[in-house]
């Protein structure tokens, strides 16, 4: 069994070999954004492919613009929570843990109590608010990310700049906390949040329901795509703690 080399249009070409993969990609994207299940998308695309194969027309000729056609099918939308609306709480807990840990480590290394500053607190509130907002309006945000990538990058830069400015200028010390305590709480929050996200990921109802497969494909294709999906999502969960670990290590070594 040869392992297919994955490139950008592998999925589109596998399900719809008779359609321009760029048309397929837009078609799939539009349906994903509105929350249609992978199975439904695969079936609709396979039927379109079958039509184009027999009529000899291109997808654009037969169906028109991919996004318009996708919407005209009025496919059912999955109502239960999908991977995006997992609940923002675990992520907020994770983020809080990370920030606490980072705040506390340098003070800990210098054997001093950690001072919680105004700027830091405001940054935390800001980040938490952003996470909640992103998860609540996941579809709108995703659409924006895809269509106006520049805007999203700008937004990210602005957020980082705001956090830095807040931390730099609003240095009023609100209160002191023993470093060890803050570190412990931070580490606990980080671990708890990560585990929570991990468990929610594992227990997601029928993870394969989100897979894009055509009704004509066998189990091999589904298994292959299922595996690929898992990797990306596990990375998503563990990336933040890993990064935090690195930062903490650096702070200890340098401080």
């Amino acid at each position: 069994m040869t392992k297919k080399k994955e490139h950008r249009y592998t999925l589109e070409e596998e399900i719809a070999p008779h359609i321009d993969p760029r048309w397929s990609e837009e078609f799939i994207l539009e349906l994903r954004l509105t929350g249609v299940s992978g199975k439904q998308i695969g079936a609709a695309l396979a039927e379109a492919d079958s039509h184009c194969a027999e009529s000899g027309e291109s997808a654009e000729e037969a169906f028109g613009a991919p996004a318009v056609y996708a919407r005209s099918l009025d496919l059912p939308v999955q109502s239960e929570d999908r991977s995006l609306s997992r609940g923002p709480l675990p992520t907020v807990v994770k983020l809080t843990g990370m920030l606490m840990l980072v705040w506390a480590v340098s003070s800990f290394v210098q054997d001093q109590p950690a001072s919680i500053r105004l700027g830091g607190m405001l940054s935390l509130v800001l980040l938490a608010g952003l996470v909640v907002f992103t998860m609540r309006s996941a579809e709108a945000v995703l659409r924006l990310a895809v269509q106006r990538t520049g805007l999203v990058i700008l937004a990210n830069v602005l957020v980082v700049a705001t956090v830095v400015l807040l931390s730099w200028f609003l240095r009023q010390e609100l209160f002191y906390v023993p470093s060890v305590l803050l570190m412990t709480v931070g580490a606990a929050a980080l671990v708890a949040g990560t585990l929570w996200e991990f468990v929610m990921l594992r227990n997601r109802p029928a993870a394969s329901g989100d897979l894009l497969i055509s009704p004509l494909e066998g189990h091999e294709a589904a298994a292959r795509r299922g595996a690929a999906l898992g990797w990306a999502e596990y990375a998503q969960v563990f990336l933040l703690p890993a990064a935090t670990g690195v930062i903490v290590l650096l702070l200890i070594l340098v401080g």
Partner: protein
Amino acid sequence: MLRALAAGPTYGYEISARLEASGLGKVKGGTLYPLLKRFEAKDWVEVEWKPGEGGPGRKYYELTGEGRWRLAEMTALWKEFAAVTGGLLSESEAASTADEK
């Protein structure tokens, strides 16, 4: 389009070919499949995927009992409409020829 399905289970491309052959002109995929999807959602048709002949697989549609009932209902309505319209037209024809005399 329900009538095109009445002859027996068929698939998208064949339906558009049948409609074109019966003089309705070219029906685009962009029009055909959303309509088929609506039939499917209303349970007027049953669907089944079958391997194609030397090509990709096809999604076959077949009228359900309710689908046939709908077809019969619409056919009856259409006949009634045609009868009434025909009656009106022949009346107005008679009236205009009477005017001409």
